[in-house]
């Protein structure tokens, strides 16, 4: 399955709904997980002998555990509202990438084994036996869904294909057909603490190097602490922030914000990962194991708050699930929501006037903002619905003078996924990733041509990695994608006084601020 040759879609001036081309993405399958990685997560190492029965039993079990599944499988009327909403359909033209058709791969089996008409008149209602071909289709097309939930916005019943693809992936894992990329990563995060498999000494080393770099550049000693007991804030951030570009510039931004606000903070080597790939494979148990590491780290380090760095689906798990999976967090400071997003922290500090910002330092750029799908449609920031759209934009406007939004259908709740979410950010799916990015690229090109936009900011590790990779296919350069906190980092004016104070008695500053916060 080496990267096959493929054509990068042409960008049009206006979005055009493509005509169907059946089967053009059937070949797109990610590598399967080796047995050792499967077994680590409690799944069989290879396809079990009686896999049909195991799969059907699992479908029945999931149908009892998740109301979403039964309601969504029963309720679809095939109205077609979702058919032109998926970026993978728009980019690939394969009809099985239309949300309803993707669901139908699962629904037709559900109908066959769990509904009366499907048992009696399968042809009439589009029910089908679970055959090897169907399983093969599942493996192809449920790994062409980034669980971005755009379809769920437009469905009159709120049917969320993400729920179906999570269930399908869980069934596939249960019969022994897991995806290499996701399952190896979950294994690493559960044993080492992060998706990259970066052990503690390497992490400490990396961050020490980062401290030196930032001091060299700014003349100020901004700290990037690891495992510091008694810090106020535990920062949980995607491990890509530790050295990928442009992620690391965001991490520098968080550090500068904490530094200037005088908030003491720490990373944890035990929970050094915000991303929770357990969600991608629909596994409550695996998702919970990862979430519990965060709870454990907060307890061990005795922190008062948990703050998450820039990561889209991580923020979904954090905002929407963490309290349920690993709460209650009654041992933390009740004055702060658990968890907080770094954007909520920065936004709050800007409003309180605690950051010295010079937006003209970003005058060399015209910025647009990519709403990451899981932040936009599966979470919130701040107190009011839609805060997840306004807070990042308000931060950007506070640190930049030139900001432009992309066309309205492609932002906020209608935002297009970057094309690499949901466990698809792997080179064996590069064709899918390039084609799936097409709608976002088209919207970006629109504001680049019209308003001279030079950079797109994002708050998701996957988005950032994905765009750095696919930008060149669309004649953008890979450094045109930046971290939102990179903009903050550029605009923060650090004074060397701060540095002296910090060196001599950094703790004093922290204490004052703790008092203030309390």
């Amino acid at each position, binding site marked *: 399955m080496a990267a096959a040759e493929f054509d990068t879609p042409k960008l049009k001036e206006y979005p055009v709904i493509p*005509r*169907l081309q059946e089967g053009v993405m059937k070949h797109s399958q990610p590598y399967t997980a080796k047995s050792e990685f499967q077994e680590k997560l409690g799944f069989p190492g290879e396809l079990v002998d009686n896999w049909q029965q195991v799969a059907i039993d699992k479908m029945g079990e999931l*149908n*009892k*555990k*998740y*109301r979403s599944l*039964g*309601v*969504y499988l*029963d309720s*679809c*009327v*095939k*109205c*077609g*509202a979702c*058919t*032109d909403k998926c970026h993978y359909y728009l980019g690939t033209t394969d009809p099985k990438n*239309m949300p309803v*058709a993707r669901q*139908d791969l699962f629904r037709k089996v559900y109908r066959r084994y769990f509904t*009366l*008409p499907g048992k009696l008149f399968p*042809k*009439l*209602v*589009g029910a089908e036996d679970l055959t090897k071909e169907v399983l093969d289709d599942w493996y192809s097309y449920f790994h062409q869904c980034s669980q971005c*939930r755009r379809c*769920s916005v*437009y469905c*009159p*019943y*709120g*049917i*969320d294909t993400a729920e179906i693809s999570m269930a399908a992936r869980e069934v596939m894992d249960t019969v022994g057909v897991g995806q290499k990329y996701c399952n190896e990563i979950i294994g690493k995060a559960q044993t080492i603490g992060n998706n990259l498999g970066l052990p503690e000494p390497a992490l400490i080393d990396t961050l020490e190097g980062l401290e030196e770099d930032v001091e060299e550049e700014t003349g100020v000693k901004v700290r990037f602490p690891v495992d510091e007991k008694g810090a106020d804030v535990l920062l949980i951030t995607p491990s890509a922030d530790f050295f990928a570009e442009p992620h690391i510039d965001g991490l520098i931004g968080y550090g500068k914000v904490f530094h200037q606000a005088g908030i003491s903070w720490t990373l944890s080597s035990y929970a050094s990962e915000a991303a929770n790939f357990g969600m991608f494979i629909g596994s*409550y148990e695996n998702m*919970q194991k990862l979430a*519990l590491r965060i*709870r*454990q780290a907060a*307890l061990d380090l005795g922190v008062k708050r948990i703050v998450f760095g820039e990561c889209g689906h991580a923020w979904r798990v954090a*905002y*929407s*699930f963490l*309290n*349920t999976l690993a709460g*209650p967090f009654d041992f933390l400071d009740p004055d702060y*929501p*658990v*968890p907080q997003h770094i954007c909520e922290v920065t936004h709050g500090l800007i409003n309180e006037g605690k950051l010295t910002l010079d937006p003209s330092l970003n005058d060399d750029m015209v910025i647009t903002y990519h709403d990451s799908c899981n932040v*936009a*449609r599966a*979470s*919130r920031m701040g107190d009011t*619905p*839609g805060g*997840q*759209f306004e807070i990042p934009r308000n931060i950007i406007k506070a640190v930049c003078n030139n900001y432009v939004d992309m066309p309205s259908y492609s932002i906020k*709740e209608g935002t297009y996924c970057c094309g690499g979410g949901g466990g698809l950010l792997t080179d064996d799916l590069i064709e899918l990733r390039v084609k799936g990015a097409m709608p976002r690229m088209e919207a970006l090109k629109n504001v680049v041509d019209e308003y001279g936009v030079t950079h797109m900011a994002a708050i998701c590790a996957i988005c950032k990695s994905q765009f750095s990779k696919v930008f060149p296919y669309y004649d953008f350069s890979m450094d045109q994608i930046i971290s939102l906190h990179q903009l903050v980092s550029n605009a923060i004016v650090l004074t060397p006084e701060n540095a002296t104070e910090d060196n001599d008695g950094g703790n004093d500053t922290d204490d004052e601020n703790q008092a203030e916060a309390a």
Partner: protein
Amino acid sequence: MSLLTATFAFLFYIATAILVIFVARKIWIYAQTPAPLKIPTTPAPTTRAGVAFRMVKEVTIFESLFKSNKWIWLFGWIFHFGLFLVLLRHLRYFIDPVWGWVAFIQPFGKYAAFMMIIGLAGLLARRILVDRVRYISAPSDHLMLLLLIAIGVSGALMTFVEHTDIVSLKSFLIGLMTFAWATEAGLTNMPNDVILIVHLSLVVLLMIIFPFSKLLHAPGVFFSPTRNQVDNPREQRHVADWAKKLDSNKAN
């Protein structure tokens, strides 16, 4: 009692029983099945009242569908609103004396049959003409529209072209509801009209199909977690019963 009357009496009892029992069973299953995680499609309301308002908009003006596709919205809404008026109008055949507001909507309800038919025809046209919708349609999806169209057309024929003996029909229906066949008065015979027989047969068929088909979207939408959940996961834990035993893995 004629054979025809006896047959339809039997069919109506069976169809009503199937409709009520199996839809109630589905609703029971939906209500009993947990939604173990908070998954509202955001931005979502942060209060129960807000969720109620979101749901009202969803089921009255089809808010999400409106955002999605104006043609489907237009045809879908015209059909559903027409059906709603038609159903209300039909109350007059089941109550005596007829309530004032049912009498008032009678003219609207009569012409609403055309809304129904036009909406359904539009949806059917899309199903045939739009390649994406054609691709996702099973035979049952076409048949469902044809069934509803046939019900609408046969009903409209009786309203506007070939009237049936509506007084006998009403007496028959009320007789069914009051079990008149068990009394001395007996059950009034229903009119022996072809159009009426077609109309009622299709209605019976629809009632039987309802609980086993995509028509379950009607109760289903109220149980859709992406639409009916309050966005408050940071404030409130949301642990399903089956997840509670996993909860003990937790350190303190």
